[in-house]
């Protein structure tokens, strides 16, 4: 198994189609294949043991990914937002390495031991012979090393082997399924698993990738319309901003699908989607098929989906349990098994919260230098808390490590956040545990209100107490203009806690 076999098939099936486009530059599948072969030869003739790319979405990303696969070295997409010291720490862990980066960053990175810096334009313009060796079909070789975002500590390098990624693609994408005019807008950064998965899925489906260098709602809207985008993936904060901008412009109407008549499928994931945002988006884009995709870096991306029919059925329902499915992540892919387990590792009954555990061929569950986290039975504990309803719909309730332990009782922040979000004045919120002398930890809520709406702390406490239990009612309620998110839409709970500790009650 090798990622190159996916590209080889695409090349033989529809080699002249555009595989990836960035502004006015593009590569067909045949050209992408040839570029991968050239750079594989260069890599194989060097002493580099990895190919790292420190870049925004550019053609160097897919070229580098497939060249690495062909040469048999791991591909390492690095976060271009990291600062000098953070970047140094990551680079030290992957030498000797090739490093492709943009012209502005290249000089500062040049004089380093065992780091061969190549500017992106030089990389993309390189000419030379194709690699004479075939790629390895050894499925256990490492395809991608992806550093986690490090929201809770030093970044870990998730190991994704060819077998995991190929299994994911074969299990979730039909070869050549895209229509010739389909185009996928990729705006998640390349160092995010969704950015990697988008390349692989689109290549195998035969769908043209349109790269968005840097996300802004205006840029996304303009590009999606100009390129007649049919498929896109966004993180929830991106969708919220897109809908906000469209609302502000006031010209988008459901009559022409919000001005996106070609937008057939919009998938989202990577964080919790507020129910109000998805409901607004569905009203604005009535002909678009919405899919919520839940997955982790360690599971080669998606393991569960809430599909378009589920979205429509939930949105049309007045039955609270059915309507609530709009905030579920749907059901597991046929190729994976999902179980909710208690602290002793036993599966729990429907509706009971526990840890989400997953098993399947796409599940890697491994970090560099730390070995596999898979149990002897092959199950991977995700550290995500959740529950499953009687029909197998999965609800994600935040990281297990974020659970608040108040007087010996385990409280899930996600459940309290969901309840607060149901209040008409609340636009966004974060619930965290704060140190408390009496209870060990107390519940604190940081709340963002909708423009022009007001509510006081006591009303919110009562709101939660009436719907959940009094132990879940936030002792501390703070109001802020916004919450801290990273650029891929992940709530930075650590920052929320720091903010509470410094500005205090």
């Amino acid at each position, binding site marked *: 198994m090798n990622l190159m076999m996916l590209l080889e098939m695409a090349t033989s099936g529809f080699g002249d189609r555009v595989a990836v486009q960035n502004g006015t530059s593009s590569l067909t599948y045949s050209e992408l294949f040839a570029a991968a072969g050239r750079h594989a030869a260069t890599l194989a003739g060097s002493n580099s043991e990895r190919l790292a790319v420190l870049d925004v979405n550019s053609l160097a990303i897919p070229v580098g990914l497939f060249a690495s696969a062909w040469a048999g070295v791991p591909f390492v997409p690095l976060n271009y937002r990291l600062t000098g010291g953070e970047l140094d720490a990551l680079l030290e862990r992957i030498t000797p390495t090739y490093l492709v980066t943009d012209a502005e960053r290249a000089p500062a990175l040049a004089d380093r031991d065992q780091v061969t810096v190549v500017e992106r334009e030089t990389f993309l313009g390189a000419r030379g012979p194709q690699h004479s060796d075939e790629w390895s079909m050894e499925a256990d070789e490492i395809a991608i090393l992806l550093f986690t975002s490090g929201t809770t500590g030093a970044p870990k390098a998730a190991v994704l082997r060819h077998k995991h990624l190929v299994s994911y693609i074969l299990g979730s994408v039909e070869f050549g399924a895209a229509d010739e005019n389909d185009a996928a807008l990729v705006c998640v950064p390349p160092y995010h698993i969704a950015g990697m998965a988008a390349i692989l899925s689109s290549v195998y489906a035969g769908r043209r990738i349109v790269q968005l260098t840097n996300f802004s709602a205006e840029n996304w809207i303009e590009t999606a319309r100009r390129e007649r985008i049919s498929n896109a993936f966004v993180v929830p904060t991106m969708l919220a901003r897109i809908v906000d901008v469209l609302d502000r412009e006031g010209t988008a109407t459901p009559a022409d699908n919000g001005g996106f008549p070609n937008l057939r499928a919009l998938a989202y994931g990577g964080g919790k989607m507020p129910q109000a945002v998805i409901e607004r988006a569905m009203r604005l884009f009535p002909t678009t098929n919405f*899919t919520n995709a839940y997955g982790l870096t360690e599971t080669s991306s998606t393991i569960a989906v809430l599909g378009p029919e589920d979205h429509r059925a939930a949105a049309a329902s007045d039955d609270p349990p059915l309507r609530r499915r709009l905030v579920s992540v749907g059901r597991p892919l046929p190729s994976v098994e999902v179980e909710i387990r208690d602290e002793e590792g036993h599966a729990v009954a429907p509706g009971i919260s526990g840890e989400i555990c997953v098993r399947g061929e796409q599940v890697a569950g491994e970090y560099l230098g730390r070995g596999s986290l898979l149990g002897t039975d092959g199950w991977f504990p995700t550290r995500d808390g959740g529950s499953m309803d009687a029909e197998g719909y999965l609800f994600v309730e935040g990281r297990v490590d974020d659970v608040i332990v108040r007087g010996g009782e385990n409280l899930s922040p996600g459940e309290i956040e969901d309840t607060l979000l149901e209040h008409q004045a609340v636009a966004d919120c974060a619930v965290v545990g704060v140190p408390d002398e009496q209870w060990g930890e107390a519940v604190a809520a940081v709340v963002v209100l909708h423009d022009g709406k007001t509510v006081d702390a006591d009303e919110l406490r009562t709101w939660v107490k009436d719907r959940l239990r009094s132990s879940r009612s936030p002792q501390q309620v703070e109001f802020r203009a916004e919450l801290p998110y990273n650029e891929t839409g992940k709530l930075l709970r650590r920052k929320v806690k720091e903010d509470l500790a410094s500005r205090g009650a």
Partner: protein
Amino acid sequence: MAQLKAGTRLRSAVCATEVIVTAAPADDLDVRCGGAPMIGAKDTPPDGSALDEQSAGGTALGKRYVNEAGTLEVLCTKPGKGSLAVGTAALTLKEAKPLPSSD
């Protein structure tokens, strides 16, 4: 007969078909295409091999084929005129339930 494992590439001795094994049982299997035993990707077909007209249903690029027990699965990476079998038992097309596009 060959010991197969995931990732093994096979080609037809009598047509253009090439496959990659994506799942394999522990025991040896007589995988055939167009009536003739399939050979390694680099091997030369034996002299006199010809497509059996009874096994000429053809293979399609990107389709997966399975045996009845579901223990063998191959992915067609190059289409050809022959059809796939283990011994005389034809492999069948694995119908994938379409999933919504998620990335």
